[in-house]
């Protein structure tokens, strides 16, 4: 084979494989075939160059190389011999038989290559399988071991199918989660308890409790009695109807999904609302008792005394209704509702609870004793004396809310120990030093303890103006900095075209412009340079001047899709930062330093352990 032919073949193969096209250029292919026809040496050469292109880590290169191979395979016996002899390697590079060596990116092309390869192998098997043993073996290997389904339109291998399944499962899981979240949301006809509906909600709660604890068990008992005793049908039916309606009411309550606020120590007078249609006949007022720690919705009758409750709220219901007709819940309930007739019992109960050290009330009491609650924050705390509430109501609304401090603690009095420092000269048990002045007065400290810092940060006003300096593309700078744009300096008033309004600014800007122009020599006009170069044929590095020295390397094969570009993901960018060599070194240094310090500090500890 002549050297020129050999070179031409290599050139052709390289051109064809780096074209990046999904189909081969027929003219070039024809030329290859023409040369190959001459002798087997040429085929040897083409085979080797094709195989080397097949092992490139670029799916487009592989696809084109595979197409060349399949063109030649159907024509030359010698080529078939060569290819079949290394069929394992060929399959690894095209069908991905070795899962350790996946096909290179880009993905779509790789998928296309694989399906094309599988189809081609099948057609080869059909026409040459009997003559080339290894081809048949390879086909059977694909079919039986790799479980390639040749009829499958996508011609996927097992690994691929498994991956697909994995992905589908993952998607299903994600969808399921979403569905769950959505259903949760949808269930969500949640009624949030707010200030506005607090009273209604409270009523609902009370009624709910009433039904569950009293009415429903009672009705159930009736039904039992009626069935056991074999009472009249009429009676039993009525009882069942009652039961059903009660249950319906409960169900309705459940469907409302009311998000209750936690209720702390509060007495509510609640009367039934006419909105609850089922319970019209059992309308009565009752009283909500404060919740104790360890909430127990159902308290048996005989234990009620123990819990400090009334024997049963319903017994006195009628009388309460008559007594307190006007005490229907008003939204929002003001402090005045606390000054109710039942507050005395409430107080008694509180006292009892305070005796119990396990109650939160006891702790609160201790806290209150140590830090008397300032009036500002007392409004939200539970049960101050009712008189103080009445007085606090008179306060103007715009009084400032300040954090509690010493000055408030000693409001209106002389601070007994302000600014005094007690010096403990010695803390020895036996030795007593010479008497010294133990207390020192400090004016600064005294002033500090009786004064208070109040900072006025003011309110945030968003920036409404733009920088509006003219940009290279004709637009105006849209940055909204308060005082200074990082690109265009101090923000100054400008007109529609972005020119400064004041004369001084305009002059300054022109000066700046001139200075910039001087930095770049005017004879290095990029276009002029290019013209000169074209005329003289000498490289005066005009492109560098034009691009300010940021010359880009020309890509070797411009037609192939760039693999690095697709790799530019947020992950890769982060990786570049995190696994940066200098960063790693810095981190390693820091860690080893910390280790060393620890070691220095504790290296001798075994001494103590042993002694």
């Amino acid at each position, binding site marked *: 084979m002549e050297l020129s032919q050999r070179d031409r073949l290599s050139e052709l193969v390289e051109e064809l494989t780096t074209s990046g096209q999904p189909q081969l250029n027929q003219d070039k292919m*024809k030329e290859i*075939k*023409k040369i190959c*026809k001459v002798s087997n040496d040429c085929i040897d050469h083409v085979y080797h160059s094709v195989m080397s292109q097949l092992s490139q880590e670029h799916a487009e290169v592989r696809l084109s190389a595979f197409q060349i191979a399949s063109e030649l395979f*159907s*024509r*030359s*016996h*010698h080529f078939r011999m060569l290819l079949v*002899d*290394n069929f*394992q390697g060929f*399959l690894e590079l095209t069908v991905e*038989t070795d899962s350790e060596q996946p096909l290179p990116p880009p993905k779509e092309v790789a998928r296309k290559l694989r399906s094309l390869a599988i189809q081609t192998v099948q057609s080869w098997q059909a*026409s*040459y399988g*009997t*003559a*080339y*043993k*290894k081809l048949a*073996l*390879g086909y*059977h*290997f694909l079919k*039986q*071991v790799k479980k390639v389904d040749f009829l499958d339109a996508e011609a996927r291998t097992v690994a691929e199918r498994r991956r697909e399944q994995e992905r589908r499962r993952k998607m299903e899981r994600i969808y399921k989660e979403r569905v769950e979240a959505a259903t949760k949301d949808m269930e969500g006809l949640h009624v949030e308890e707010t200030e506005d509906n607090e009273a209604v909600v409270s009523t609902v709660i009370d009624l709910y409790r009433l039904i569950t604890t009293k009415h429903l068990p009672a009705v159930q008992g009736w039904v039992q009695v009626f069935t056991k005793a074999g009472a009249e049908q009429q009676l039993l039916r009525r009882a069942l109807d009652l039961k059903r309606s009660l249950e319906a009411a409960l169900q309705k309550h459940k469907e409302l999904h009311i998000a209750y606020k936690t209720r702390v120590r509060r007495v509510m007078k609640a009367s039934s609302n006419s909105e609850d249609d089922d319970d019209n006949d059992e309308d009565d007022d009752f009283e909500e008792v404060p919740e104790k720690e360890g909430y127990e919705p159902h308290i048996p009758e005989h234990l009620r005394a123990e819990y400090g409750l009334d024997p049963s709220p319903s017994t006195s219901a009628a009388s309460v209704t008559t007594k307190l007709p006007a005490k229907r819940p008003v939204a929002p309930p003001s402090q005045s509702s606390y000054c109710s007739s039942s507050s005395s019992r409430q107080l008694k109960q509180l006292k009892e609870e305070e005796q119990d050290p396990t109650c939160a009330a006891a702790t609160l009491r201790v806290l209150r004793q140590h830090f008397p609650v300032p009036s500002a924050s007392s409004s939200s705390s539970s049960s101050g004396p009712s008189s103080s509430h009445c007085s606090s109501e008179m306060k103007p609304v715009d009084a400032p809310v300040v954090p509690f401090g010493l000055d408030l603690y000693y409001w209106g009095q002389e601070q007994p120990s302000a600014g005094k420092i007690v010096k403990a000269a010695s803390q020895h048990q036996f030795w007593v030093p010479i008497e010294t002045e133990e207390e020192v007065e400090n004016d600064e400290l005294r002033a500090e303890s009786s004064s208070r810092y109040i900072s006025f940060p003011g309110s945030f006003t968003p920036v409404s103006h733009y920088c509006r300096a003219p940009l290279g593309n004709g637009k105006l700078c849209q940055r909204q900095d308060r005082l200074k744009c990082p690109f265009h300096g101090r923000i100054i008033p400008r007109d529609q075209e972005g020119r400064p309004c004041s004369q001084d600014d305009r002059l300054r800007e022109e000066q700046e412009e001139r200075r910039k122009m001087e930095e770049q020599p005017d004879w290095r006009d990029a276009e002029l340079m290019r013209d000169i170069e074209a005329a003289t044929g000498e490289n005066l590095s005009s492109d560098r001047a034009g691009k300010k020295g940021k010359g880009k390397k020309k890509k070797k094969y411009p037609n192939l899709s760039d693999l690095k570009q697709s790799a530019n993901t947020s992950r890769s960018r982060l990786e570049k930062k995190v696994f940066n060599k200098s960063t790693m070194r810095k981190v390693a240094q820091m860690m080893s330093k910390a280790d060393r310090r620890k070691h220095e500090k504790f290296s001798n500890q075994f001494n103590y352990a042993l002694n």
Partner: protein
Amino acid sequence: MLAFLTARQTGLDDPLRLRRAESTRRVLSLKLNPDRDVDRVHGNGVNTIDIEAVEGRYMLSGGADGVIVIYDLENYSGKPQYTCKAVCTVGRSSRYVHKFSVETVQWYPYDTGMFVTSSFDKTMKVWDTEMLKPAEVFEFEGNVYSHHLSPIARKHSLIAVGTKNPKIQLCDLKSGSRIHVLQGHRAEVLSVQWSPRYEHILATASADSKVKVWDVRRASGSLFTLDQHNGDKSKASSEAVHTAHNGRVNGLCFTGDGLYLLTTGTDDRMRLWNSANGENTLVNYGKVCNESRKRQQLTVSRGCSPEFVFVPCGSSVAVYALHTGELVTMLRGHYNNVDCCAFHPDYQELYSGGKDCNILAWVPVLRPVDVEEESNKGAAGQSSVNPAFQDTWSSDED
């Protein structure tokens, strides 16, 4: 060839010489032959194969799914094209089948009426070939990696068994019991092999990188342990003393005359040892890829000069000259790792089984028809060539 024949006819040469020359020639021309196929029965990797020594006609194979198959290798059809048929199969449906992977199969050396198989289901079964039923089942505590019956023994009928337990078990076919253990290894015994020369000599290879040679009449311990450095302490690090390899030793094979022993290990080396004194002959075979965690079945040619070694090496079978260590050729045909190979001494054929479920027959390629003959035939000869072998350049590419 003609010279050999005349010399043979006139009695100038020993008849053995012609035979050797022809065997060697045939081994050198081993190829994957389209005329010879082996039935595809195994649906899983083929772990082990064995060709019986009585007639050289039947081949046993054991698969990773527990299936055992017997093939008929003899071609009585008179045509070159022949597919070795599976005569009988112990398939998954059989109630006697091994539950897990079959690791070793071996014919009883004197009769094809019996064969022995061992498996990862911790059993070794002695089969009646006619009934395809186990006549005897030995059970062990651990996976059985390998077993071997002495091919020449007249005075005993012991089966040496290498299991996960470092103790080598000796099972007696006469009594059907385990009669003896050989202690000395520190890790599982991956391969055991009786010497084809002395019936009481046994070689064992273990995952503790040691190879020991035993005389089973001596209970106290092994005769010697093979040492890759031949006792040169300066070369060996302290833990590498008396080791045959720097990794698990999973292949073991005596030469046909029993004078040499070949071992392969996961350190990608193959070593040739003098089996009489355990000396490392230091033949360099280069790198012999070996990633198997189980037994690997290598084999040596017989009746050639020089002799050849066939050793699985990745997805191909490497053929080495035994004493020079020269790589003769790589037999490429499997599409996955090769686990076993067996040499047919009568026809100089090689059978290999691998993880790609195939058993491939490597058959000597007959010498091509002489040039003169072909010219006589002329055009007729051309047309007889398989059309698939012809070039099909289209005319428009001129």
